[in-house]
């Protein structure tokens, strides 16, 4: 029997039920007719035929399990029951849908903003390059100028420490990390920055422009390799 016919029997079990009922009914009728030939009464013949046949409901269930997918059938039954309960109680249904929507939206936002850098491959020209934004804190409102001469530019770092950074970024999404870094160069004074790991949409979300016309410039700042992206 093909998987298609089993799927059909699972989704539309009425035809299968009818077939099984007809087949077993035909068998019982033939047995009753053969028992009545020696002269048994109709009731006695029916009783003996039923005894010889056994439990027809049990046999039909066994046949149904063989000719359909019991697991899928169970899932569909549960789904139908769930839909019936939801239609009966609309307030519960609305609450359930809203809760799921909010939860899915929040998880999706988390994934887009924080987890994507860990999951998508780096497309930088320099494979060791990446995304670790640093922006000025209130103690240091003006970051040092980048090559783009854009005072609000965000510089990014990336590298093989991406996983470690991802954990820090997740933590910093709730408690942003404040640290000191020499942004302008190795001999530049220490500046207070907030570091967070972000995805490409961070520019739009944070409302800042990325550094422009900077390409694969490697710098070592605070023992980390810095690559400025051209976008």
């Amino acid at each position, binding site marked *: 029997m093909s998987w298609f016919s089993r799927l059909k029997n699972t989704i539309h079990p009425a035809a299968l039920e009818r*077939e*099984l009922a007809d087949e077993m009914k*035909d*068998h019982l009728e033939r*047995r009753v007719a053969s028992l009545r030939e020696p002269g048994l009464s109709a009731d006695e013949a029916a009783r003996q035929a039923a005894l010889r*046949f*056994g439990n027809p409901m049990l*046999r039909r269930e066994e*046949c149904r399990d*063989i000719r359909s997918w019991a697991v899928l059938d169970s899932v569909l039954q549960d789904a139908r029951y769930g839909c019936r309960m939801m239609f009966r109680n609309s307030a519960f249904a609305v609450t359930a849908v809203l809760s799921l929507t909010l939860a899915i939206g929040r998880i999706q936002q988390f994934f887009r903003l924080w987890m994507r850098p860990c999951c998508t491959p780096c497309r930088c020209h320099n494979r060791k390059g990446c995304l670790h934004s640093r922006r000025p804190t209130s103690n240091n409102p003006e970051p040092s100028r980048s090559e783009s001469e854009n005072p609000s530019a965000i510089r990014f770092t990336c590298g093989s420490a991406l996983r470690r950074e991802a954990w820090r970024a997740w933590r910093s999404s709730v408690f942003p990390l404040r640290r000191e870094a020499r942004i302008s160069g190795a001999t530049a004074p220490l500046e207070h920055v907030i570091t967070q790991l972000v995805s490409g949409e961070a520019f739009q979300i944070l409302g800042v422009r990325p550094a422009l016309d900077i390409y694969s410039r490697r710098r070592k700042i605070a023992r980390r390799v810095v690559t400025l992206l051209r976008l």
Partner: protein
Amino acid sequence: MPSPTSAQTALDLLVLTVLSRRAPLHGYGISTAIEELSEEALRIEEGSLYPALHRMEEAGWITAEWTVTENKRRARIYRLTRAGKKQLADEIQHWTDFSAAVVRVLRYA
């Protein structure tokens, strides 16, 4: 996977044998044939025949179709397939080996 000598396998062997020797039959005809051929020594529980038939149909050993019999009754008849013939040959061999082993034990124990 049932044992080669289990009741389920024995029932399969009987059903396949009956279908190979006689014309295509419905379920009632199969159970009646088994009783007649065994001189009523073997009487299967008729309800358990149908799960076995459907299982063998799913395995591809038999096919089934609805027809109208000479009594103008609608019946589902079963036929043996090529795979069923091969399966029958294998089961006959297993059963022959098993019964020969039992006979040896009875004779030489």
